[in-house]
């Protein structure tokens, strides 16, 4: 950490106030974080180790039973949970693998002086403005079985139709496509900001050295945008693991939970109070995944920052 200001030393006024000031300043934030992050996280941990056989009966300590159930092939939740965990990983990875490179490509395309730049930027960016529920509703129409646009086009070329959201094998890719459409513009914005932060003369110097476009991209642009990419990776994963809206509109995890994901499954099971233990265990696992991923990246991120300064 850096050297801390002498300004924080008590100067005048009541000394107790000076001493208390930093605590008073952080108190509001910490109160809210304690109420809505720390306390519920602890609560989830406690709940995940308890269970009750019937409503109105007291909770009993069951150790790791709830967690074991989640991964037990012969338990009704376990039979779904592993599949849903898998879906979430495929969804998050699938989105990022396409949308990050695409966002960078679009940012480079739109970081040039071309005619009607504002229009092209708008075209790619507008999905970001739409609430996901609205965007997904539009796509539900495009994907719909017999009157949807995609199938109408397929039919007019005599290609047969695809039950996009009803076939277990096409539903997840369809939901991923919508997510790519929605998020690429957002990611692009960060890349655009990153690109504009790179001084022009670096490229000119490279060009004088005879570096072609690909070499410039590979040796200059990509490394200089490393921090942006890491940052986008973190928020992309955080978003991915919290996916709910598309699923609410595009089939609610059906068919056969082949498009269901972790947070939406928690949401679906929340009404049955007899399952609190399992739902809490799922919450804990989801929190742990994000905790491990973000904190490991956070350290990479911080280290990267020091490298750049050096």
């Amino acid at each position, binding site marked *: 950490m850096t050297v801390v200001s002498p300004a924080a030393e008590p100067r005048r006024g009541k000394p107790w106030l000076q001493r208390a000031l930093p605590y008073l300043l952080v108190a509001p934030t910490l109160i809210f974080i304690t109420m809505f992050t720390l306390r519920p996280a602890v609560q989830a941990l406690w709940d995940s180790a308890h269970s009750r*056989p*019937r*409503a*109105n009966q007291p909770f009993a300590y069951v150790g790791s039973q709830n967690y074991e159930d989640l991964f037990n*092939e*012969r*338990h*009704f939740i376990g*039979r*779904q949970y592993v599949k849903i965990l898998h879906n979430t990983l495929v969804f998050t990875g699938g989105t990022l693998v396409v949308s990050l490179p695409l966002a960078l490509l679009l940012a480079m395309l739109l970081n040039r002086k071309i005619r009607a730049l504002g229009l092209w930027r708008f075209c790619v960016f507008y999905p970001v403005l739409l609430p996901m529920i609205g965007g997904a509703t539009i796509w539900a129409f495009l994907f*719909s*079985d*017999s*009157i949807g646009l995609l199938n109408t086009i397929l039919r007019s070329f005599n290609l047969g139709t695809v*039950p996009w*959201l*009803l*076939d*277990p094998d096409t539903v997840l890719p369809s939901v991923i496509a919508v997510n790519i459409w929605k998020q690429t513009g957002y990611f692009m914005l960060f890349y655009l900001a990153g690109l504009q932060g790179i001084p022009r003369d670096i490229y000119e110097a490279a060009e004088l050295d005879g570096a072609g476009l690909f070499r410039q991209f590979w040796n200059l642009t990509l490394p200089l945008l490393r921090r942006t990419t890491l940052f986008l990776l973190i928020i992309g994963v955080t978003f991915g693991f919290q996916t709910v809206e598309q699923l609410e509109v595009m*089939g*609610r995890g*059906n*068919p*056969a*939970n*082949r498009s269901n994901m972790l947070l939406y499954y928690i949401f679906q*099971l929340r*009404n*049955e109070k*007899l*399952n609190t233990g399992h739902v809490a265990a799922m919450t804990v696992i989801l929190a742990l995944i994000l905790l491990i991923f973000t904190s490991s990246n956070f350290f990479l991120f911080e280290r990267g920052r020091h490298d750049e300064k050096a």
Partner: protein
Amino acid sequence: MKHKLVFVFLLLGALVWSAPALAQDEEIVLDFYYPAAVSGPLQEAFERYAASFTEMHPNVSINVVFTGSYGQTRETVRTEIEGGGAGPDVAVMLSVDLYSFIEDGTIISAQQYIDLLEDPQDFVDDFFPAFMLNSVDAEGNVWTLPFQRSTPILYYNKEHFAEVGLDPEQPPRNLDELIEFAELLTNDERDGIQIPLAGDFPSWLFQSFAIAHGQNLVSHDPTEAFLNTEATKASLAAIQELGDRGVMPVGGSAWGDTPTNFIAGAASMIYHTTGSLTFIRNNATFEFGTGFLPSGPPNEDGEGYGAPTGGGNVYIFDNGTHSEAELQAAWEWAVHLASADIQADWTTTTGYIATRPSAWESEALQNLVAEWPQYTTAPAQLQYADKEIATYRSIDVQVMINTVLSDIISGNESDPDLALEIYQEQIDSLLEPYRGE
């Protein structure tokens, strides 16, 4: 705090003591919660019913509150009462939630009021028996009154029937005919039959098959569910066959898209709720007919019908603080909602099936039926209908049944027999603590 409590007790004591004297003129406000599963001027209709009720009972007024979907309504009611709140006095909720509320101990049985009637049996007999199945517990006590009920029926495109040489007045009567007709009707442009088994609740339409194959998924005993049975397996095989023969989309269609597909001519026959009749009637540009669900093998008469019921009942709540007069008023309001006049009006407003035969004799419904005879199919089919999935731990049991059916029907389960066995085991282990009481 303590003083306040003492005061409240004194006040309550005074109220209880004086209640019989006041009962006649006590001003009563009933909180009434209702969900919406269809669009339409629902609030306005309920306000109307409330006004006519207050006309008859000047000291009672009804506070009509819209509480979202069925799920939200249930959640709202439960959390309000759990948090020490009053909750509603009367609410419309899914008929299948009965055992959740019996277990919570927050509702009161309608039976005690029915017993006070001049002719209790007569009152119960005027509801369709199929609709009463989800109102009674294992001992036969009536808890709730049928209010907005539905059942799935078969819709078919008469023009398509004529086109392939089928009699447009003769819908399929059993599974064999269903397959046979569907094969004739299927071509490049359309499916012979679409059954919405791909959504959240494959179990509802699946029940039609199970019932027609001789064993419903549930019985009158709320501690039993019958998933791993021969009827289930035969039903799954029938659904599989429809898909394999290419006359139905494999895995079924989506709930909301199915009536749209029917109107678009992309499906010649569909299974759907009676609630869709108005939408189809308003948008179809062809002659269409309705029939019973032909989901089972033919009996000696050549019929293989079976259907579940669905929809919401009226529940009466008591968190222990209600006066006798308030409960009496709540009961009267429930009876009012289930009355023939209001049932007839509710049918014309929403498309639900009026729950008592006497409502169908009313002028309003006679006129409707004269113009659209398709409306008579649902009440007539009730003779083949059985109860919806209602057991203890209802939501868990429903989720389990729906999940395993969805897995198998969509072809996502490599070992269906094992899956049925596992889920049956799980359901039994959940219901075990409730048995032998």
